[in-house]
């Protein structure tokens, strides 16, 4: 049995990596991947906690999060595609439509 604190540590490292990537990468797809990484870090934490406490709620949340992540990726990629169609780039430095 692995100590839960190791799993938590791994999840924290993964989450930090994802966050860092989300801040610093220019490519929108990479940012999306980083967000997925964060979500999976949280999933890992959920699953670990569920196993530790013997409670299925964590698994339920993990599955829920996976489903949401999937739909998020689908929508996100669709948005990027249409942005690329309009602006011919998906570099986040150059896309600032939200300002207006």
């Amino acid at each position: 049995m692995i100590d839960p604190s190791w799993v938590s540590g791994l999840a924290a490292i993964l989450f930090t990596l994802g966050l860092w990537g989300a801040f610093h990468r220019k490519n929108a797809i990479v940012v999306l991947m980083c967000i997925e990484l964060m979500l999976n870090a949280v999933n890992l934490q959920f699953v670990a906690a569920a196993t530790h406490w013997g409670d299925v709620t964590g698994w339920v949340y993990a599955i829920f999060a996976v489903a949401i992540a999937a739909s998020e990726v689908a929508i996100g990629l669709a948005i990027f595609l249409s942005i690329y169609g309009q602006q011919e780039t998906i570099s986040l430095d150059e896309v600032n439509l939200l300002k207006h």
Partner: protein
Amino acid sequence: MSGSGIIEYAVLIPLMPILAFPVILFLGKMFNGTPSWVKNVKEGGLIALTVMGAVLILSILLIKENLHHGSADHIFNWLTSSWWDSDTGAIQKKVFGVGIYIDHLTVMLLFVASFLCFLINVFSIGYMNTDPINDNRNHRFYAEFVLFCSGMLGMVLADSFLWLFIFWEIMGLCSYLLIGFYYERPSAAYAAKKAFLTTRVGDVFLVIGLVMLWNLFDGHLDYSYVFNPENIQAVDQGALQIALGMMFVGAVGKSAQFPLHVWLPDAMEGPTPVSALIHAATMVNAGLYLVARMFPFFAEAELGALSDVAIIIAIIGGITAVMAALIAFVQMDLKKVLAYSTMSQLAYIFTGLGSALWLANNGYDDLAKFAMGASLFHLFNHAMAKGMLFMASGSVIHEMHHAHHEVAHHDDHDDDHFDAQSMENMGGLASRMPITATAMLVGSMSIIGIPFIGGFWSKEGIISSAWQVALKEPIFIFPALLILIGAGMTGFYMSRMWFMTFAGKPKTEVAEHVHEQTPWIPIPLVTLTFMTLFAIVLAFMHSGHWLGDFDNGHYTSDLVHGAADEMHHVFANDDPFLLLLTYVAIGLSLVLGPSLAMALYGGRLDEGQKAKPWIQWAINLSSKVRRSSHFDNSAWAESSFAKSLHKRLHFDDWYDAAMMKIVVGFANLSALFDSKIIDGAIKGIESSSQGASRKIRLLTTGSARDYIMMAALGTLAIFLMLWGVA
């Protein structure tokens, strides 16, 4: 006092005219210009006349029934409210009622008002309906006319100071409407506004006075409560004096006394019947009525407690009497002379009332009643004479207009600047307008106080009463002296007016073509001439006493006895000082004033013109005096004092300057302050919040990564906070 008999119908007296007001207005609006409306109804004139006739009949019936005793009738409760007495904690009901109250004062003023309103109405039909400038708007005149009359009648009959004030204000409104009848003339619009605003200043004080009275008398303004001696003695006398003083300011405004007198001469902008109405029948009498109404307070209050108010009333009267007479010296406008004469004569009455109130308050009951009677009798005489004088002057002006049209047409040159009211354009009208000249002569003699004619008895009574007080209270010498001087001045300016208008040669071509021709106009003139002469009978009935002392007066129908009493009082007084005074007054008013006027303005008529024998003597006398005296007044006429008299002693200028510069200037400044500072503060908040939001908006870079960063930081902050809480 009980309510029964004709008094139950007394409410109709103000009600009928007030109901006629919309009727005439709407009918006029509907039928304006149709021949039957113009010819048969005289554009509403006959409707008004019918109503005023009914009012007159009802009034006479009412007067007849109430000549010897008063009565009162409560009609309904107008306002009901509550008052919380903080001492006892009780909540009491306070009621403002509506009712009729009749005593000697009511009776006298009711007669004056209804009688004169009726006659002026007759006169108006002659005057207004024959002037083309009034075509198609006479219904407005008659509607406002009846409303005006109802204001006066209602005020006289009201049973409380509250309703007195309500009708008082209605008169203010009507004076505004009627003075501004020719609204398209800037001078008329200005005069109307001036009249309303000046009297409004007085009214404000009157309201404050009433409010104080209400508070003093435990929530009552009805006469039956406030005139109860026990109630008067129970209140704080000092506060009562202040309240009465405040109310007097209202009377000063309404009766055009110094310093609120400026509106009256300008009020001549209205049609002449309006001047007659304002000056004789209604408006200016209202102020006198209010002061006369206060008599019970003075009679029942503690001895001497209210003397100060009485002295102020008399002093204001004295000042105004002389000031107005002085200004009247130089007026060239026929109606303006009469206006200042009104002011001056009202001032006499105020001085008389002041004396009466002082005497009453200091325990000289008999003298007080005499003074009161004399004042009221002068009010009566002045109203009759002044109503007649104004109507006669209207007659002159009307015929001058006619003649001017004739002449202008004849010579085919239209002179628009011809002033039909200026006495400089008149002269020698005595033979051409016999009825008018007679009326004017009798009226002037009454105002001057020529012995044996109406005004003489009352004026003598006022002067002697004022001196009676002066013997007891030294400060009263001031008003008493002023009105004594004023008597001589009255003699001068009234004679001047008459001689300039009727004696001498015609000064313009227009005046040569004047002749009496308008129907309706002579009726009131003749009636009032006889009424003024008839006043001698009233004098012999000892009216000086019974007007002043209603409840147990010395009203006598024994004319011979009464005449003997009156003659003895006037010409052979037991008090040598008063006797001397009488002869001084007669000398001033009969000899000095008129002879000066004759010396300056007298003269024979044109060759071949002959006046009626009862007028001719005056003209002959004047030309004799003039020829023998060779009096030259050019130095005086050029003096700076005469110039300032022409400027009405600058009061109007000062008031205008105060109004336009100080009040309006301050108002403009406040408007600026309001929009720049107060609203500016709001706008400042608005623009600074907008600026702040513009600053905050810089955070929205539009870059998705910044948003993610912010979301992460936010989450972190929440975690930290939760940690802290845990």
